[in-house]
């Protein structure tokens, strides 16, 4: 606790202070200073300062949190150190070592800095136990944009909450404000929507409503059949593809069967990727079904299923070069193409019935 913190608290007293068990007020009879265990009344300024000096953690803790006027930001930072579940004493015991939470693939640690201030460290959950010297360290929140841009294979990540964040980096010694900015670059708007959910005010926009709002080339997606919305969610909105927990459904009365996901932060509306994909699927669903007759072996048919599954699960890179027992092995696929497809890449010996 610093002198400034104590004086700031005393000056805030006439407006009333309540923070983690500390209650301070001031009226004509003097100052009141209440802690979870004690209550002091009718204090003059000097006596107030003496009592405050006996409770430095409560004072510095209040001083830290009162800087965050915006509730979503304050609540997120408090969540990081479990402030609603742990007493000030517990936290001040634990904070020198660090208190950590996971936010998607982010591992966030709060530590006590001088005079009860906090500093924050941020790294990939996969690096939670790594020595900081083994990681590339950053201190500027803006650098998060570059880290979030590509996956391990160098591919562009248009969906920021895809579970493909690269590891090997650490942001160190961030202020609370810098931490929030960094988190917002990794996972935009997640803190704001999480807070709204905590407050029971998450404004969910369901698929139908989102679809009806679209104009231009996306105008068509309100024609996507209801059952296909399930397939959209299964394709795009599960933990293996996105760390947000889907809170939207077909509409308010029609929940989807697809699991919502286990993410800490909610998804309140189909995102632009889902809308863009839904446009393609709307057009594909408008095609008439046909019956085709195709000649192939039982194993070749099974191989088609293997190929679809391997692509859908992003497994193609994992299939060993010589593993011709896997239907999605490249040589198996090339053999099937050589045997069954023409130069234009279409299956031969297919007839429409």
């Amino acid at each position, binding site marked *: 606790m610093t002198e400034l913190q104590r004086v700031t608290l005393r000056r805030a007293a006439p407006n009333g202070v309540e923070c983690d068990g500390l209650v301070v007020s001031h009226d004509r009879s003097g100052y009141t200073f209440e802690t979870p265990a004690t209550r002091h009344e009718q204090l003059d300024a000097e006596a107030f300062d003496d009592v405050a000096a006996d409770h430095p953690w409560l004072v510095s803790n209040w001083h830290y949190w009162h800087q965050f006027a915006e509730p979503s930001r304050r609540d997120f930072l408090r969540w990081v150190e479990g402030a609603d579940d742990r007493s000030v004493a517990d936290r001040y015991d634990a904070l020198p070592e660090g208190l950590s939470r996971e936010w998607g693939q982010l591992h966030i640690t709060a530590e006590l800095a001088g005079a009860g201030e906090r500093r924050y460290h941020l790294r990939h959950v996969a690096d939670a136990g790594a020595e900081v010297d083994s990681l590339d360290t950053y201190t500027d929140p803006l650098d998060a944009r570059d880290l979030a*841009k590509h996956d391990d294979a160098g591919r562009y990540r248009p969906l920021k*909450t895809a579970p493909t964040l690269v590891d090997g980096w650490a942001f160190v010694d961030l202020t609370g404000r810098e931490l929030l900015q960094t988190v917002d670059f990794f996972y935009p708007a997640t803190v704001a929507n999480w807070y709204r959910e905590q407050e029971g005010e998450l404004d969910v926009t369901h698929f139908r409503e989102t679809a009806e709002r679209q104009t231009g080339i996306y105008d068509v997606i309100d024609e996507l059949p209801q059952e296909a919305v399930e397939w959209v969610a299964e394709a795009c909105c599960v933990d293996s593809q996105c760390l947000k927990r889907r809170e939207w459904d077909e509409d308010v009365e029609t929940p989807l069967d697809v699991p919502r996901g286990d993410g800490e932060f909610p998804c309140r509306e189909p995102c632009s990727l889902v809308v863009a994909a839904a446009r393609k699927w709307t057009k594909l669903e408008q095609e008439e079904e046909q019956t085709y007759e195709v000649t192939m072996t039982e194993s070749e048919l099974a191989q088609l299923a293997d190929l679809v599954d391997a692509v859908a699960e992003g497994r193609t890179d994992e299939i060993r070069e010589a593993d011709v027992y896997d239907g999605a092995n490249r040589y198996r696929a090339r053999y099937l193409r050589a045997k069954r497809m023409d130069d234009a890449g279409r299956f031969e010996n297919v007839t429409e019935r």
Partner: protein
Amino acid sequence: MKALVIAAHGSHLNAESSTPTFSHADTIRATGVFDEVREAFWKEEPSFREVIRTLESDEVYVVPLFISEGYFTEQVIPRELRLAGWDVADWNSDGLSATHVTLESEDTGKTVHYCGPVGTHESMTDVIIRRAESVTGDPDVGPGFGLAVVGHGTERNANSAKAIHYHADRIRESGRFDEVAALFMDEEPEVDDVTDYFEAEDIVVVPLFIADGFHTQEDIPEDMGLTDDYRKGYDVPAVVDGHRIWYSGAVGTERLMADVILERAADAGVDVGDTLETVREATRAAGGAR
């Protein structure tokens, strides 16, 4: 507190599409004119739909990083930002003259000063000229040179071509270049025939696009005959039909664009002090294309 939101298109496919937006945002962030500066996108995150709620500020200036008034500035962005009572008539624009309107965003209750796009602001003319300077490496480029301002153009929206003609006219009237032409990809006169429109041996070609991508890196260089395959690249200048073509790539990547964004916000009421001069000087010192 007051915030600036730069509203850009972004891309699901091209990682570099958002790079100029981030660069201009960083330039403005560093000036300290705004308490917060945030980028928002149609195709990336944060989306237009959610950006306002990420801000601490109650006063938000939104500048669309788009070339023309039209579908995005009149329908998509106001709708996605949930601007209460938005009516394009409030802009009272002839397709070039939108400045700003002040409305409330329905989901946050914050005050939003919604500005016209960067592409139609008069200071965009200076960015085109700066682009010509940076691609030729000559701060006095003009005499002996022709300048082609290239737009996408479309039969579907008359406003699309207006910004291109507007800036071409202004540069022509300034007399700095011997000849100035407005050319298009999807309407007449076409950029394919660029050399037909100039007597001058040297022609600077500046595409009025926000980000480098398919059109500015593939279509236009191939259409003009700078290369038969964009993957092989091209020289600057490249000789076509006896003319030297100084092709600059998208004007939106020019660092001076940060100035236009600030101008838009200043027109909407932000006190920027002498920041505009500072940005102009700093972006010149830092050079042109990135």
